[in-house]
């Protein structure tokens, strides 16, 4: 039962010809559909919500209000802009420290020594533990009255610190926890990069009388640049959208003074606590654009580095 077309070529054959010609699309189709369903539709829905006054429940009718939510958010110096600032500060602070420390650790592990395997495994430990469990643990350690951190300080004869309980100390303390948790990841990426580097340039420089610092600065680092950028990209995106650590240690709203309220925590509060879906969606779209911008800058710089 093959129906024939006007050209007299059997249908099945035409179909297989067509499939053959378009195979790259056919094979990619499932992934494309998947992407469309799981990424484009939610983002489109969020974009739509951000232009409405949806509040309380999305099942209630909402009115289209254009860019009103965006105006409200962008002129909000009470919660939105401080949250942007904190997000930037947290990301940049954590990233800078993680890069410097990660590089130091990677350089230490670069040359083999006895017991190296144990060191590598133990360095990886913070990175493989569950983030929520880590946050809970540090929260207990930094508890100002009965926590371990202040007990250690009292042994050394130092005064007790409020740690996470003090609005001014909150962000530095959180950056410290993030550094403790993610430096190993940066170190491992950099170490992988280091171990692929050729030895010759380094050797040549040594023969020419270059010192350790010079060799690192003028040879190892430039060669390692692409790997460093990968580490920066991965960590930056991750740090930008940190949620678990902040939520577990400081709760909703980032504490009584919103001292740990980054964009992610703010959006969570807007949608889940205030049920203000329109405004929350507007913040999310802006946040999305910010992350895209950061990624674009980093990848653009990377292309520039190759020139």
């Amino acid at each position, binding site marked *: 039962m093959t129906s024939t077309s006007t050209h007299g070529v059997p249908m099945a054959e035409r179909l297989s010809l067509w499939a053959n010609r378009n195979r790259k699309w056919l094979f990619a*189709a499932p992934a494309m559909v998947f992407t469309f369903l799981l990424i484009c539709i939610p983002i489109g829905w969020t974009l739509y919500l951000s232009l409405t006054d949806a509040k309380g429940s999305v099942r209630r009718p909402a009115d289209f209000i254009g860019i009103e939510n965006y105006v409200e958010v962008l002129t909000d110096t009470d919660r939105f802009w401080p949250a942007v600032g904190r997000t930037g500060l947290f990301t940049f602070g954590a990233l800078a420290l993680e890069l410097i420390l990660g590089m130091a650790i990677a350089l230490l592990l670069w040359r083999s020594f006895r017991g190296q395997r144990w060191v590598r495994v133990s360095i990886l430990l913070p990175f493989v533990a569950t983030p929520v469990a880590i946050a809970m643990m540090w929260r207990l350690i930094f508890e100002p009255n009965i926590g371990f951190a202040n007990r250690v300080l009292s042994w050394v004869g130092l005064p007790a610190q409020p740690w996470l309980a003090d609005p001014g100390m909150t962000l530095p303390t959180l950056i410290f926890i993030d550094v403790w948790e993610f430096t190993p990841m940066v170190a491992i990426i950099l170490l992988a990069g280091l171990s692929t580097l050729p030895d010759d340039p380094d050797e040549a420089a040594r023969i020419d009388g270059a010192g350790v610092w010079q060799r690192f600065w003028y040879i190892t680092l430039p060669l390692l640049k692409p790997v460093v950028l990968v580490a920066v990209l991965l960590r930056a995106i991750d740090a930008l959208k940190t949620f678990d650590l902040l939520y577990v240690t400081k709760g909703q709203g980032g504490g009584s003074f919103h001292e740990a309220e980054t964009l992610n925590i703010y959006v969570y509060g807007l949608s889940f606590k205030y049920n203000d879906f329109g405004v929350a969606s507007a913040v999310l779209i802006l946040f999305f654009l910010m992350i895209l911008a950061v990624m674009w800058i980093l990848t653009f710089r990377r292309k520039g580095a190759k020139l």
Partner: protein
Amino acid sequence: MQHRQAVRVAVITTAAALSMGTLAACSGDGDGESTTLNVTLANHVWTDIITEKIPEFEEQSGLDVVVTQLSEDQLVDNYKVKLNAGSTDVDVMMYRPLQVGKLFGQSGYFADITEQVNGAEDWNWDDFQAGPVGLTTYEDQIVGVPMITESEMLYYRTDLLEEAGLEVPTTMAELEEAARTIKEENEGTAGIVMRSQASAAVTQFSGFLYSFGGTWIDDDGNSAIDSPEAQEAYAYYGGLLHDYGPDQISTDMSWPEAAAIFAQGDAGFWIDASSLYENVYNPENSQVGDQVGFAPFPEGPAGSQPYNVAAWALGINSASENQENAWEFIQWATSPEMTLDIQTEGVPSARTSVWEDPEGTASFPEDLAAAIATNGENGVGQDRPLVVGVAEAREIVGAPIVAAITGEDAAAAATQANEQFQALLESEE
């Protein structure tokens, strides 16, 4: 050309995938009642007891009960996601009437169970206390059955009071004096510990607000949180913690943190919900279990006016396709016998008959039962502003508490919060 065909393929495939999904969704259980009942419950002693008894219910009803148990925050988030999506896989829901009653009512998430509660004769709806019933009623429709009540309790350390030669405080002035004495005489021990996180502290602050003669919202529906009475209450609550609280006073404490400090023996007084007494009384959880005393809420200028509220209730999801069975479950879980049974295990109920039955209070420590009874006579039926946006309101009205705790000017903070709260009230009109 190739490109256009590719687009067409993509469109066709997407359409096919979408229609398949829709078909799959439609070929669900169909109409009518399912024998699987989805019950969502919060982490609570009540839940632990009821889950042990559920097999009995399954046997007598022939239903298969699936329990989802979550902590309070996750529970609310879970409801918001599922109820927003109109999901049918929540039948019975345990909820906090004070926190989400208005919001869920307004969003149409509750099934109206007025007929069911009035039609169940032996079950006796009239037996439920009026205050709690008021909270589970939305616009004259009954939407929930209250099963747990709590009131504001003064927890104290019998040994510390005795050492200092103090009587149990009955007024705010005596409480302050006792907290000061304990802090001065015991190195490293706080006079008092209470919640200090802005929104968490609101509920415990409410008793102080009422007892000083203040209120959240006045009779005209306007914000009343910068009245002289409210300012005084803010300053008093914050001052207690600032002056006689733990040395390192954090502004992040909710009840678990405060209870932990008290249970470690690091504080003389703790004020919080009566339903939390196991955390400091039970020797398994507490180092000072046998030295804990319970007293009614102290008197302020306007008398002793602690909150006395329906903490939790059971409701039915309006989108559930299993509402008859859901009601059957609620009826079973809140029957007079079951309520008495659960109260003897230490969970305060909302049924009058159970409180009047000596067996109903036999399991509580004697002074706790007495304090709960006294609070019940004096109590106010709400512990937070009753608005739609409770979470937002709590952050606003809680800010002056934190200001007072950190030693800032409570009156100025109250005036600022008053403006924000007024704006919130107006936006909800």
